[in-house]
């Protein structure tokens, strides 16, 4: 358990998981900020401008943490996964470099403009700047996901004589069929995170009786967008993401559903613990034949179970994969009725008085983070034991000369630093939320704490 490979994997998992807590908020908020800023621009409404500015500050905070934790991701490809980088650089070097040139530059440059140019530029440039920020963060997601999609479902490549791969078509790489649902699903999840956080802050203000006008805008925006996003997470994006897993990665599908044996009319396991000795689910709670129906629209359809595949091709953390998948789906399924109820209350003009609902919305903010983290763990644990699905094994990918002692050294460093980072982010986030947005028409900036 203490091989370099183990620490390499753990370090990438820790740094990637921690990193993605921040971009998912910025990707989601980018959409909402463009909406608020557009309202402000077209209706000349200062209220929306202050709302957009408040969320831009939160965006900037999350972006700063996203950047500093994101640079290690690119570097680790070479640092910890040298053999994989040698093998796959001819393909994924393209998408990673495109991310830098087309997306990261855009996002970083225009965030500086937005933060420092508030008094320098007119409303149109400011509006354009938020659009650029949105474009940058979403393109960034696209190129990173194109990289991951290739690792899940390699396309547009050829194998060289020395065993490495090269790209045969950039267009093919960027239009990887896997990417379509992975991109829409991941981006929708980020929008859900952004809208949950926005609604949560609104609920907090309303329950506290402060910043009432801003609170209502945050809640309205967050709840409506949240309802759309959570619904789209299940259907069509989540459904199709699952279908392509069963089509191209049947072992992953069987593992995360907890299906050990091939069955015609397979049950959908809702609850229960995988037992790796007996290859059964302990105390299962199932929806009869539902798995077959969901995947093949036919209750009697056959679904391949894990035992039909060689054990060395099973994901090596099958129970964890099973749990992360069920956490993702479980939370996602709970989000939809919650947000739809909130929308109905909003429509009936009762949301702002419904304290039970405001409490629920306020406390829900962490859960989309848990769901997205679980979702990524499902995608990545399920890809095991492959680094590039069906093509290149994880065990063959790490750096040959970076020993376990050195990886543990860096892993501990990252762990320590990231605990500090997490605490700092939460502290500053709550500090900014408690300071609140500026009051429309009142004295601006000068009366507030500078900085």
């Amino acid at each position: 358990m203490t091989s370099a490979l183990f620490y390499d994997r753990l370090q990438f998992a820790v740094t990637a998981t921690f990193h993605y807590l921040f971009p998912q908020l910025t990707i989601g908020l980018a959409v909402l900020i463009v909406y608020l800023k557009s309202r402000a621009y077209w209706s000349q409404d200062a209220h929306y401008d202050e709302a957009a500015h408040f969320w831009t500050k939160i965006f900037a905070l999350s972006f700063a943490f996203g950047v500093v934790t994101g640079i290690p991701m690119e570097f680790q490809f070479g640092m910890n996964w040298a053999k994989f980088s040698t093998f796959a650089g001819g393909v994924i070097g393209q998408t990673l470099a495109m991310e830098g040139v087309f997306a990261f530059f855009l996002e970083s440059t225009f965030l500086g403009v937005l933060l420092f140019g508030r008094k320098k530029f007119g409303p149109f440039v400011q509006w354009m700047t938020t659009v650029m920020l949105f474009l940058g963060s979403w393109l960034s997601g696209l190129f990173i996901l194109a990289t991951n999609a290739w690792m899940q479902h390699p396309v547009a490549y050829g194998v060289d004589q020395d065993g490495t791969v090269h790209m045969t078509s950039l267009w093919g790489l960027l239009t990887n069929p896997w990417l379509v649902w992975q991109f829409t699903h991941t981006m929708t999840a980020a929008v859900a995170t952004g809208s949950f956080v926005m609604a949560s802050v609104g609920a907090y203000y309303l329950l506290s009786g402060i910043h009432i006008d801003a609170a209502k805008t945050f809640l309205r925006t967050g709840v409506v967008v949240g309802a759309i996003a959570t619904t789209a997470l299940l259907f069509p994006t989540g459904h199709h993401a699952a279908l392509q897993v069963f089509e191209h990665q049947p072992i992953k599908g069987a593992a995360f559903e907890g299906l050990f044996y091939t069955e015609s009319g397979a049950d959908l396991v809702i609850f229960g613990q995988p037992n790796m000795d007996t290859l059964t689910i302990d105390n299962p709670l199932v929806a009869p034949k539902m798995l077959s129906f969901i995947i093949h629209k036919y209750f009697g359809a056959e679904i391949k179970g894990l035992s039909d595949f060689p054990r060395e091709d099973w994901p090596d953390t099958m129970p964890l994969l099973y749990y992360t998948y069920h956490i993702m789906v479980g939370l996602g399924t709970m989000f939809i009725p919650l947000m739809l109820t909130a929308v109905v209350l909003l429509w009936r003009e009762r949301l702002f008085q419904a304290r039970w609902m405001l409490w629920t919305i306020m406390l829900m903010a962490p859960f989309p983070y848990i769901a997205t983290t679980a979702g990524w763990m499902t995608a990545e644990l399920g890809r095991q034991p492959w680094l590039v699905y069906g093509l290149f094994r994880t065990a063959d990918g790490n750096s040959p000369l970076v020993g376990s002692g050195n990886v543990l050294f860096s892993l501990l460093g990252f762990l320590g630093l990231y605990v500090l980072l997490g605490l700092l982010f939460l502290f500053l986030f709550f500090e900014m939320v408690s300071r609140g947005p500026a009051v429309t028409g009142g004295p601006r900036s000068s009366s507030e704490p500078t900085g």
Partner: protein
Amino acid sequence: MAVETLWFVIVVMMFAVYAVLDGFDFGTGIIYLFVARTDEERQLVLKAIGPVWKGNEVWLVAGGGLLFLAFPKVFAAGFSGFYLALNLVLWFLIMRGLSIALRSHLRNPLWRTFWDAIFSVFNLLLAVVFGAALGNIIRGVPLGPDGYFFAALWTTFTPGPIPGILDWFTVFVGLLAVAMLAVHGANYLAIKTDAAVQTRARRIADRGSWAVVLLALMAVPVLLFVQPALQDGYVAHPVGCVLPLTVGAALFAAQYFRRRQRDGAVFVSWSLFILGSVGSVAWGLFPNLLIAVEDPSSSLTIHNSAASSYGLRVGLVWFGIGISLVIGYTIWVYVSFRGKVEQGLFGGPYE
């Protein structure tokens, strides 16, 4: 020109531009505690780099990505071989980035003093490490026949057959980088500020620049002593001599303009000095990307480490489009924020 050669130039250009752009951020940080004494002055200095430093940092990330694209074997060998040094770089970049982003969030003077110190120290360390990294690339690394190596942080402190990341030579290059970038940052602040900060910045730049002249004169024989192969590139392509000549001329011009207090011209000359220095080294190393200290046949060059020609050619197309856009809006930002930063009500981005 072969497409591999073009990619060599692109990758070098990315890192050279990074050295110039993030270089003045590092330099600003190195002299930060001395050039700006009060809280108002420090806010002013941070405001001078505030709108641009994030964009500047991307040149490193994009450069890394392009190296990965064009020369995957070098990316794999270099990043895993410099594993320890790069972890330090990552941690230092994290601390540096946080310090700028977080410093002005709270008014508490202890909070600000703490992040001020972090900002300064980690910029200094980054300049040392990046300088030492360049030193390592010049000196060569213990590449094996399988194309990998692993460098300890230090071994004998001499550039022998089992070199460490830190030896007297790489530390020397690190110090040279600190001096060059400190002056670079001071030059930048001389443009962007006025009154007391500008006076101090000019004084630091003036004294520092003579230290750089001295170190640069020492560097020429030291470089040729440690890596005689640097001459090969110039013997093969003598036209490259224009690069070291540019370095000398730019340095001379910078000192000339400095005496006339023409801050803009000083900054441009000094930037050219940095670009030229990186370019001169690259010209000498070409076509090597990573030199093997023991067996030159194990060196990674543009010929034995490049990606497939389709990837390189299609990359060239989109890179041309992408970098033109980047250059376009980067210039727009620098022009928009030109002139002195203003002191006043406004203390930073989080008004």
